[in-house]
């Protein structure tokens, strides 16, 4: 426990900044900034401390499989000799950062396979449900499912990445009442049972989105990964008010009506991102609770990081694996399962916040779902700030309409040439023309989505699909609609300008620039994330 007093984990809270408040640590890519916020009108939202993990995770998993929620039989009753079983699981984008071994997916998949072995099931395929994300490397797959499963299934091709562009491997199962095509993996569609193994890191994950998105392709995704849907999701982290989820739920119904039988297993983890001991533990502590050792450690770490070349810093941060603990596991019928899962995510992450603010500040860390073992390029900076972090609210956005968003990130003009080839062209070609999501969608999406070279790289290399950078941009469409200005502190000036944002050298400069928009003496809110939190704004 990070409070060092062996008490129950403390909930998240809102700190009103006064003259005695210490400077606040801002994540800043592969580094940190210490920022002093103006007293009297600033507040900082702190996440809750990590909840205790389940004492017996394997026992809890077995219990969940035997006691399903909703209208579902226990998993062992659904398994029979001679059946076709497909186990799909979340890809490298979850959890963040990757967790220490054993990964939850390994624990769950081994429990499922154990029951399948008991039932005499021979025809089993395991699919990384990555939709149009990049393929997972063999090492990444091995980390996710563990050595035992990998060695048993990968060598003969029964453990593989989903291929959304395989003409023979995909099938359209129908259309929703809204005219949305439901495209799905043929193997999964033809299976007697699909078992989906999920890790619910944030409230957006899971539910019908796991299968309707994870095992789909561009033909299906375009119906909800678009500007209209994202602008009308308030927010996409709040399923009750998310057009993204409404579309996925409609698709889930089509899947069910088409006879696809899905047994959903969802898990939640605590927010023990940086550990309770070790070099990163201080990032989980509140600044005034840092010991002398923490302070010395922070100074040494910061000095070291300032001296290191960016590639070395990236490598050091990429090697960090979070000691996440399983806080819940539930299985059975998708909607019943997901309701409990979401409640468990909220239990860890929700922090009550009263009222909106004029300026919202956020320090963006080194990682987002799409740069694991990769580079956080400017488009992903936009997606993390305006997409993920901005949308981590329930009720109302933290910042008022017409307010200012201040991000802290180096925003390097750098791209991973293998993982993000279409991002390079998107940045150079599309953003040079316009940053308006609707115009981008109208003018450029189809061309990138159907580009044969991008499709080839997606299928055969480790590249994100050609259309993926568009989705990243759409992810921030709601925030772009909502705020009047976005300022990036400490970013690469040409890259920030290309994104359509304003660069600032220091937070003080950024606040002054924001004053032009929101007036003098604005209220400021800083969301201290990660460890992950979600603001419940009233």
């Amino acid at each position, binding site marked *: 426990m990070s409070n060092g007093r062996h008490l129950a984990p403390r909930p998240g809270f809102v700190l009103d900044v006064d003259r005695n408040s210490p400077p606040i640590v801002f994540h800043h890519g592969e580094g940190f900034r210490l920022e002093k916020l103006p007293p009297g009108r600033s507040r900082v939202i702190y996440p809750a401390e990590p909840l205790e993990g389940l004492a*017996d*995770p*394997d026992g809890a998993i077995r219990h969940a499989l035997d006691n399903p929620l909703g209208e579902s039989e226990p998993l062992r009753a659904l398994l029979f000799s001679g059946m076709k079983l497909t186990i799909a699981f979340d890809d490298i984008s979850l959890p963040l950062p990757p967790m220490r*071994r*054993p990964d939850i997916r*390994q624990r769950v998949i*081994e429990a499922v*396979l*154990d029951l399948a*072995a*008991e*039932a*005499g099931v*021979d025809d*089993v395929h395991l699919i990384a449900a990555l939709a149009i994300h990049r393929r997972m490397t063999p090492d990444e797959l091995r980390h996710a499912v*563990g*050595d*035992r*499963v990998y*060695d*048993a*299934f990968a060598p003969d091709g029964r453990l593989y990445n989903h291929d959304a562009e395989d003409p023979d491997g995909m099938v359209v199962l129908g259309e929703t009442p809204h005219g949305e095509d439901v495209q799905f993996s043929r193997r999964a569609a033809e299976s007697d049972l699909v078992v989906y193994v999920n890790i619910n890191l944030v409230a957006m994950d899971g539910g019908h989105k796991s299968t309707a998105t994870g095992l789909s392709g561009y033909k299906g995704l375009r119906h909800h990964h678009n500007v209209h849907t994202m602008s009308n999701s308030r927010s996409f982290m709040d399923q009750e008010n998310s057009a993204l989820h409404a579309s996925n739920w409609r698709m889930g119904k089509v899947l069910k009506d088409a006879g696809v039988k899905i047994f959903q297993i969802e898990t939640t983890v605590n927010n023990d991102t940086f550990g309770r001991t070790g070099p990163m533990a201080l990032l989980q502590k509140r600044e005034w609770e840092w010991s002398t050792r923490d302070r010395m450690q922070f100074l040494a770490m910061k000095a070291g990081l300032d001296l290191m070349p960016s590639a070395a810093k990236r490598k050091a941060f990429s090697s960090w694996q979070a000691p996440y603990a399983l806080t819940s596991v539930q299985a059975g019928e998708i909607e019943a399962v997901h309701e409990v899962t979401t409640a468990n995510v909220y239990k860890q992450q929700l922090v009550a916040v009263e009222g909106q603010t004029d300026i919202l500040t956020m320090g963006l860390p080194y990682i987002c779902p799409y740069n694991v073992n990769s580079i956080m390029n400017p488009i992903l900076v936009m997606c993390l700030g305006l997409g993920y972090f901005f949308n981590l609210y329930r009720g109302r956005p933290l910042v008022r309409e017409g307010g200012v968003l201040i991000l802290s990130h180096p925003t390097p003009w750098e791209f991973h040439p293998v993982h993000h080839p279409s991002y390079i062209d998107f940045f150079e070609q599309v953003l040079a023309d316009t940053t308006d999501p609707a115009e981008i969608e109208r003018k450029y999406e189809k061309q990138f989505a159907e580009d044969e070279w991008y499709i080839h790289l997606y299928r055969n290399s480790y590249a994100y699909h050609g259309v993926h950078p568009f989705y990243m941009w759409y992810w921030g469409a709601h925030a772009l609609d909502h705020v009047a200005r976005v300022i990036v502190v400490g970013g690469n000036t040409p890259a920030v300008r290309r994104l359509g944002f304003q660069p600032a050298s220091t937070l003080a400069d950024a606040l002054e620039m924001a004053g032009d928009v929101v007036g003098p003496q604005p209220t400021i809110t800083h969301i201290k994330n990660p460890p992950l939190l979600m603001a419940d704004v009233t």
Partner: protein
Amino acid sequence: MGALILRVAKTRALLGRTGFPWRSAAVPNGVEPPPPPARLRADYPTDWARRYPARVVRAALVETVMKPVMWVVASPTRRGTDRLNCIDGPVIFAANHHSHADTPLLLTSIPDPWRHRLVVGAAADYFFATRIGGAVAALAIGAIPIERTRVGRKSADLTRQLIGDGWSLLIFPEGGRSPDGWGQPFRGGAAYLAIRCGVPVVPVHIDGTGRILRKGRLLPRPSRTTITFGDPLLPTEGEHARRFAARLEAAVASLADETATDWWNARQRAHAGTSPGLTGPDIGAWRRIWALDGGNRRDRRRGHNWPDL
């Protein structure tokens, strides 16, 4: 060279003929053997070997001597240590037993926090037959005497007390090294202790140490080894030691299958009750050895490797 061999042979022959008093006399048949000297075998005191200075010496031996030696001689691959993540507190590690290399291999393979708070159940009649042998075993591997030739409460009481104090136990339920390369039926000791102490038993399968130093051989021969840790087992309610021991043996057999094939095939066979047994087929001795070597027979050849034509 030939002269030297001849001289050694002559000396041995001379000693053999000389016998007593050069050698101790064997106990005649029909005569009650004298009681063993006190403080030997199961009575050997080992508490000193669990005090701090001895533990430091042992930790140094394990980390600086055994570990590099095992790395050179056994090239170990360790699997399944992640299965131990959910355990907190003392456990009983129960492994199959082929060779004297098994103990140092496991002492350097069992992960922390168990590795340095571990006692090894060692045959009282073999390791603790002399004071020097007992001292070396207690100091170097943390051995405690376990009676295997007669029923006695002393070993069980000592082990229960140590587990209660937070020590983990490494035990070889077969009761001795394999005489022919195949396993032997598991005895009930580990299962009995697990039931009495309420601690989990971690089945462990060791593959390859028989090739390094099988019973009867004096010098080790380097070979690759694989150590596979299984899921911890707890006795079910009302389960008696014999049945639990059988379950333990089946778990180790399944791990052996996992090492030979893969986890999925092993689980399928385990559930179907068709895992290959540890003890091998009930056939003639030569056929057992023949069956044991299987596809590896060619590896035993030294020198020439004929190409496959």
